[in-house]
């Protein structure tokens, strides 16, 4: 279990994180979500004992992360934003070095290596020099060094950063496999990435913890979800905008209608709604003898929630 209490970090006089408090249970996969500069990397670096906090306490697996970082590091595997690889070493030599650094004997490294290569799908490049590998493979090597000593806690900072779509899918599958045996902490600013991989989210903004819970919990905690965008053709010679707006405002569940913008030969209206009322909106538009061109969620619920939470943090600062 990870327990963090009133953790904060200042760079010079500038607050980068905190104070934040949270707990992560064994076996959980938790996503740190936030915009660039939200404090995700700082939080993960502190948890990985790479950086010391300015104040607060950390307990990882029953050990004090501040006073006993040496022991805590044995329980942690960390993949930073940029994989910490040596370009002049082969994959095998590098993983052997990483394993020995984490206290494994050469025999243990040798026995563990086939599993690590299989899980990370590095078998065919095992003898290659890391400097010659693609970014995707280097990222995999980064994951491999993080898991070689079978740590209880796995910390992955933006694991899909810089990967192409195929590599992102592969990395996502890899993380799914790793979830079976590790407590995993992942950071990302990509919402879909986090929502597909994690059991629980910690939303950070400007160094503060803005929300915590599953995607559903976070969305449910918001009273208003601006989720529907409707695009309607404006009738010729008609006072289109006002009429359409009035029709949309009359639909049950619609709290407000934003000013429209032109799109695809019609006018698009973003609706703030308390529920998914796409069916009612389409019916109302058709009943008003208007041409419905397009109707969809403008953003996912999580994305809306995220923007609201982060927007709130901006407003409060």
């Amino acid at each position: 279990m990870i327990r963090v209490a009133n953790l904060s970090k200042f760079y010079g006089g500038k607050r980068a994180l905190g104070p934040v408090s949270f707990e992560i249970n064994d076996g959980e996969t938790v996503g740190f979500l936030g915009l660039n500069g939200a404090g995700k990397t700082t939080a993960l670096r502190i948890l990985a004992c790479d950086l010391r906090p300015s104040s607060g306490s950390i307990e990882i697996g029953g050990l004090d992360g501040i006073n006993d970082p040496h022991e805590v590091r044995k329980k942690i595997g960390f993949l930073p934003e940029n994989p910490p690889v040596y370009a002049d070493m082969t994959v095998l030599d590098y993983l052997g070095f990483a394993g020995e650094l984490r206290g494994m004997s050469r025999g243990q490294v040798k026995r563990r290596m086939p599993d690590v290569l299989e899980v990370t799908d590095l078998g065919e490049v095992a003898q290659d020099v890391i400097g010659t590998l693609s970014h995707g493979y280097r990222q995999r090597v980064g994951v491999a060094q993080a898991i070689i000593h079978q740590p209880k806690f796995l910390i992955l900072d933006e694991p899909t950063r810089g990967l192409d779509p195929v590599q992102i899918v592969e990395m996502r599958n890899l993380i799914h496999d790793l979830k079976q045996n590790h407590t995993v902490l992942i950071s990302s600013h990509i919402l879909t990435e986090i929502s597909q991989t994690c059991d629980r989210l910690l939303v950070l903004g400007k160094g503060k913890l803005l929300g915590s819970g599953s995607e559903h919990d976070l969305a449910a905690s918001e009273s208003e979800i601006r989720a529907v965008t409707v695009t309607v053709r404006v009738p010729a010679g008609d006072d289109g905008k006002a009429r359409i707006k009035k029709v949309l405002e009359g639909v049950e569940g619609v709290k407000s209608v934003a000013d429209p913008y032109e799109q695809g030969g019609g006018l698009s209206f973003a609706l703030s709604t308390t529920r998914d009322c796409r069916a009612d909106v389409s019916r109302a538009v058709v009943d008003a003898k208007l041409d419905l061109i397009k109707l969809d969620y403008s953003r996912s619920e999580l994305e809306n929630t995220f923007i609201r939470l982060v927007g709130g943090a901006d407003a409060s600062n």
Partner: protein
Amino acid sequence: MRAISIIYRRELGAYLRSPFAWVIAALCLLVDGFMFQAMAMSGEQLSATVLEKFFYGSSGVAIGAGLLLSFRLISEERQTHSLVLLNTSPVRDTEIILGKFFAALTFLIILLALSFYMPLLIKVNGKISFGQVMVGYVGLVLLGSASLAIGLFASTLARNQLVAGVVALVILIIMVFLFPLAKRLDSPVREVLQELDLWWIHFQTGFMRGVLNLKDVIYYVAVTYFFLLLGVKTLEAKRWQ
């Protein structure tokens, strides 16, 4: 101790694989050879004088090689982000610094050993004792290790390798020229600065002439220890920044 050995093996492997390290070795040996030819082999001289001149030139090479082999050790790892692996492994900052230092020192000793044919030439053609040669080489290794420690310390200060190199160079220049600077000052500052000088007092008047003084050995070990300790403390401090 185990972590020092693991880091030592990796670093030494990196030196042996690195074209940069071999280019430094080749350049140093080239310069050493030229200086030997120009200074030591010019005209008829006592073989002991020729040996002194060889060690005079080689001491500059040892200082330069020490700097060139060490200024990238930490700064390059910071720049390429590989330092995170060491920082997040159960390894102490002292072990990181010592593993890297001993690897660099080993490569420096290999480099200095490759120049051994020059004193051998003097021995074959002149009259010098083996002890005189060995004392000179002990001095070169100690001087080189002090230079390595200074370079390693500078490397912990800066992420940029060039900045680290310049910082190391400035520290070395100051330490080498403390003696001529001290001569312009009054006592007791003069005596203190003279004793802190890296080259004139402790190498030129001792090791270079084949004289093994314990105080010179202690001086170089102390300088090496001091800058390695500063390197460890800087690494530790960087975790708080």
